[in-house]
């Protein structure tokens, strides 16, 4: 069995999330089974161009496998140039995902920019298994309104009893919501001493973690960060994704804040 040979998945739907981001829905060919947990990722192949790691943005509690692709380099460009019916290679799921068994019942989720795609998997999982969780809040910020992902889902989250705060860095005439940092959304959340799931730029992660520890009594080992690294094999052998002694693709990409704060 060759771990490097991908499964094949057909693109069954493409939703435009923002000018350079698509939400792609995939169906694995040959009826392959694919179980995963929120926070895991796959290695996506465009044959002839190569492979890159993409977080799974769908929840395992629903049928469709979904990936959120943003134009960044050669391979993501290749994926963005694909059409419905085209076939991509998929390897995985890889990574540790969010440790749902260890996390507390009260959860604060904070996302910045394209990192929010990783967190959507956890959010929709919580929506589908709402009774297993306590107080849940989402704080999400993007550069401008055009850059906000999954806008059509916020209402559904709120209806499921999740506190949702959205902000942008730069507003425009049509934007009536918050302008400012993600941390500014957190004041109104009444969650203390819970678990957190954060994904975004290092500056944002540090600011959110600091606020959680200082003002919301979170412990640094209950703050989970999804780390981004250059990856090639996804199975802890090529050594590209090392963060200190850990492989982001094996012992990560979800790390507790204490493990990664020196490299952020």
């Amino acid at each position: 069995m060759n771990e490097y040979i991908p499964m094949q998945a057909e693109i069954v739907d493409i939703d435009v999330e923002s000018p350079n981001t698509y939400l792609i829905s995939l169906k694995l060919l040959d009826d392959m089974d694919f179980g995963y947990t929120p926070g895991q990722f796959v290695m996506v192949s465009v044959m002839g161009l190569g492979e890159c790691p993409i977080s799974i943005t769908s929840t395992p509690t629903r049928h469709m496998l979904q990936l959120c692709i943003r134009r960044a380099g050669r391979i993501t460009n290749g994926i963005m140039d694909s059409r419905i019916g085209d076939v991509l290679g998929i390897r995985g799921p890889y990574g540790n995902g969010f440790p749902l068994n260890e996390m507390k019942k009260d959860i604060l989720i904070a996302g910045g920019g394209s990192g929010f795609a990783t967190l959507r998997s956890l959010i929709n999982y919580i929506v589908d298994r709402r009774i297993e969780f306590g107080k849940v809040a989402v704080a999400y910020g993007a550069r401008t309104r055009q850059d906000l992902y999954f806008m059509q889902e916020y209402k559904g989250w709120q209806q499921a009893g999740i506190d949702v705060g959205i902000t942008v860095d730069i507003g425009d005439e049509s934007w009536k919501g918050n302008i400012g940092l993600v941390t500014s959304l957190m004041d109104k959340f009444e969650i203390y001493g819970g678990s957190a799931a954060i994904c975004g730029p290092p500056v944002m992660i540090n600011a959110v973690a600091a606020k959680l520890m200082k003002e919301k009594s979170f412990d640094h080992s209950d703050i989970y960060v999804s780390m981004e690294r250059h990856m090639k094999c996804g199975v802890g052998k090529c050594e590209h994704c090392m963060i200190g002694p850990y492989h982001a693709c094996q012992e990560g990409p979800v790390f507790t804040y204490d493990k990664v704060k020196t490299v952020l």
Partner: protein
Amino acid sequence: MKALLPRDKLLPFLTEMSHKLEVVAPVLANEEEVFCTWTGQPLAFDENPLNPPTEFLIPHRETLFRYVQESGRYTFEEEPQKSRLVLGIRPCDLRAVAVLDRIFGAYPRDSHYLHRRRSTLIAAMNCTRPKESCLCAHLGSGPEAKDEYDLLITEIGSGYLVEAGSPAGILMLSDHSEFFLNATEAQLMEKDQLMKQAEEVVKSHSDVSLQKMRDTIKMADWESLGRECLSCGGCTFICPVCHCFNIVDLGVPDGERVRCKDTCILSGFSRMTSGTNPRRTQGERMHNWYLDKFEYIPQKTGLPGCVGCGRCGRVCLAEIDRWKLEAVR
């Protein structure tokens, strides 16, 4: 099981083995020792070849699979693996194999490596004449073989003392018993004596140990070392333990996905598509290489990630002292 292979029986034994599988052995090319496919040339055991034999387990370049596009989907084809006997792997390189076995054999297993590994018979060779740059004994990896082998050869006066270290090794000796004699007590003692002497020679070379290197790494001025590094990548390409690889696709719409050697010494190794680089300076990257060898690999595998072969120093373009880690210039 131990036996003596008389000097004049070595080539006939190898010829016999070469009928069944590819024999790789050290020979002279351009008057230098190299490992390559043996086709009857005289063998060269004076020096351990500069390029380590781990290239037969971690090739510089190998095809992971071929892809062929047909009506929207792909078929993937793999290449068959061939059986090999690699003769003349020195204890330091054997230790490197042991480290690689633990890294690639750890879950999730790398079946490519393991397939190659299982198709490879190892006839290791003890070092009776270590070089100036050899520091194996300080790191527990030589000059006598300490790790798994199929056969272990030690050159003594009357020929080659051969010891079997695995069922496959025992089979090799018993299937080809016509080449071997019983090993005498005196010959075994001669081997022990030679190995003891070799160990003393290595121990008399500069003093190094896992803990000493950890201390040196903490004290080194990495930014100064980084300024001197000429980014040739030699240390990472020549190190028998280094195994980082890159995966590239060659060919559209049909082609092959190839795995080839990579080097953490280049900034592109850890740089993300956004341009952010967790190891931005050359000093940080060198530091990371050393930490991997002396901290992370021992943590993961229980074995040091450096086998003391001294090759990195022999190819360093900036002539940095790889043990003292002092900025020379």
